[in-house]
């Protein structure tokens, strides 16, 4: 390109920019920074740019968003909030209550979000009747991943009850295979725990115990049984599980060192990245029992000054829920689209299962928010439960003590 053309194009783009009413701008705080995730967000940035928007990236990874939330608080307190922030679950309503979220109802109504989103997920995006966040994807949390070759060799089918799971695990252990690949980090312990509670207690029990925090449910025999099952499963993990990252646990299943892993569907990305095929190399199934635990990522828009930024928020919200982004992003991320009208032709069989189950459970009222991934409770309450779960799993605490501690911790976190 010679000097003249550079000059000409820049003058041209300058004129176009001047012609537009407002130039959409967005500074986006998110914690999707690794290869696959970053590529998925880049899709959004490209769409945003192709509609004339200027995207400023503000990535902060770490601790499942902890570091990003630290940065967010500092930014809000200094009166310099980012335009759009990756937020999820009750945190959205908490931030709304602080009076710092923008209203994006105009976009939501124009795009008819109320009709295309499952009701329980739409509920997370609304604050006192207005729309305050845009959902990106649905991760299912209650998955069990398995190494197909190992299951075939030992004649084991994917378990549909926890008893079946235990029987399969005992058999595998006798054969010298680690039954459960697990990483001993608090959030992973909590992930396993909530699938056990859902499986043993059923959707209604899950709701009263881990969403409504009903004291009777928390101290019930069902809850004790859940802790008993956790104790049993503690025997199924290998000796080196402490502090292991979830992806290393996934690698154990891939390499045939372990049979099962209980983890959300981001684990699928690891299998796919290693060139494995669902149904051939690895199996995916929901954890034993009914129900569906979802973990929905979303973006909330913060109150900002300036027409450009507000235009950016509107455009961003529209694009996030748009068909194209929903498809491309979720193909990259391993999750499924939030809206039901996206074609799943290009998605793999696990994603199709997930989508069908979501529709069915939404119908049956057993589509539930994941407590372990910050969808069900305020941070302080979820954290208090996780403390007990991880303390129990990593010690020889009895289930009776655990249940008592759980009740105390929940009461103390109110």
């Amino acid at each position: 390109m010679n000097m003249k053309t550079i000059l000409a194009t820049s003058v041209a783009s300058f004129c176009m920019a001047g012609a537009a009413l407002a130039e959409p701008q967005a500074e986006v705080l998110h914690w999707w920074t690794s290869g696959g995730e970053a590529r998925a967000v880049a899709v959004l940035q490209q769409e945003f740019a192709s509609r004339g928007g200027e995207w400023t990236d503000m990535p902060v990874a770490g601790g499942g968003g902890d570091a990003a939330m630290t940065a967010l608080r500092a930014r809000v307190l200094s009166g310099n909030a980012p335009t759009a922030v990756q937020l999820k679950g009750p945190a959205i309503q908490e931030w709304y209550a602080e009076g710092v979220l923008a209203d994006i109802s105009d976009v939501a109504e124009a795009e008819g979000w109320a009709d295309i989103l499952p009701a329980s997920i739409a509920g997370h995006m609304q604050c006192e009747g207005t729309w305050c966040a845009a959902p990106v994807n649905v991760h299912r949390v209650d998955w069990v991943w398995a190494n197909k070759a190992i299951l075939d060799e030992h004649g084991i089918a994917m378990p549909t009850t926890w008893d079946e799971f235990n029987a399969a695990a005992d058999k595998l252990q006798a054969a010298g295979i680690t039954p459960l690949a697990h990483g001993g980090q608090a959030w992973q312990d909590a992930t396993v725990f909530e699938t056990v509670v859902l499986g043993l207690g059923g959707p209604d029990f899950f709701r009263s115990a881990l969403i409504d925090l009903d004291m009777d449910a928390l101290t019930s025999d069902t809850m004790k049984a859940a802790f008993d099952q956790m104790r049993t499963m503690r025997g199924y993990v290998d000796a080196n599980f402490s502090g292991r990252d979830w992806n290393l646990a996934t690698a154990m299943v891939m390499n045939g060192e372990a049979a099962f892993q209980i983890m959300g569907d981001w684990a699928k990305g690891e299998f796919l990245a290693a060139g494995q095929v669902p149904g051939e190399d690895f199996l995916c199934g929901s954890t034993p029992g009914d129900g569906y635990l979802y973990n929905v990522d979303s973006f909330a828009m913060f109150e900002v000054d300036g027409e450009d930024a507000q235009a950016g928020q509107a455009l961003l919200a529209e694009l996030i829920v748009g068909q194209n982004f929903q498809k491309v992003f979720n193909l990259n991320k391993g999750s499924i689209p939030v809206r039901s009208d996206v074609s799943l032709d290009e998605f793999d069989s696990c994603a199709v299962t997930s989508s069908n189950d979501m529709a069915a459970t939404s119908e049956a009222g057993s589509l539930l928010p994941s407590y372990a991934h910050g969808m069900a409770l305020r941070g302080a309450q979820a954290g208090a439960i996780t403390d007990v779960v991880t303390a129990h799993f990593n010690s020889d605490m009895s289930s009776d003590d655990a249940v008592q501690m759980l009740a105390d911790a929940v009461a103390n976190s109110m």
Partner: protein
Amino acid sequence: MTDTSYAPPTQSRGLKIALRWGLYLMLGVFAVWYLLPLFVMLTTSLKSLEEIRTGSLIALPREVTFDAWRTAWSGACTGIQCEGLQPYFWNSVMLAVPAVMISTVLGAMNGYVVAQWQFRGANIIFALMLFGCFIPFQVVLLPMARTLGILNIAGSIPGLIFVHVVYGIGFTTLFFRNYYVTIPAELTKAAKIDGAGFFRIFWSIFLPLSLPIIVVTVIWQFTQIWNDFLFGVSFSQAGTQPITVALNNIVNSTTGVKAYNVDMAAAIIAALPTLLVYVVAGKYFIRGLTAGSVKG
């Protein structure tokens, strides 16, 4: 200089040689222990991801590749931008250099006052300032965020410099004060009688003596500021994030595939400036400490 090599004649020659060997062996064992993590990081950064997945972590690479280093510097994704650490590196330089300089100058002046120009209450003021060294930084994040907002430097490099200077002067003042306190007060007195003023005495008497302690202070401050993550992540915005934040973005993804070789290469790259400072200035570091800063 402690000189203990003239061993008393009671020790036999053989024992002496054995002791000597034992000494070197001990020092060697410790050197291995100190180097082990760096060794793991280095070898991992030179392996391919395939080899890491299949092989032992503590093993030499079967095939050395520098791809991870290239990726970490200029290709790794730290968000939707995949430009590696490079752009953030310069943010850190722009932030660390002025912050180190300002806090060192302030520390020198403060230390000079507290050590040589005692006035009523100076010690209490010094003690109060010193206490600032011990305040856990997590405590100050939120009120500091508000302050930066009021000062209108939130999210900017000057804002970060400001924060690092504020929480750095406690230590720099301590270093300089402990150094200057060993310089005889008569020197200042004599200069005063000759008619020299406050700044003149500092400039022509104290500054020329200060090289060792300046080195110590600069090393300490540079290490602290370059490696800081908490302030960097809280008080930056897009475009002003320092290298530790980018490093964290590369290393700490939660639901993505982990490239350990790139992680390790990125970590070493991020640490190179401080490593360089330690290797190059290490000698002066000990000398600076010897020269008085630790005599307290």
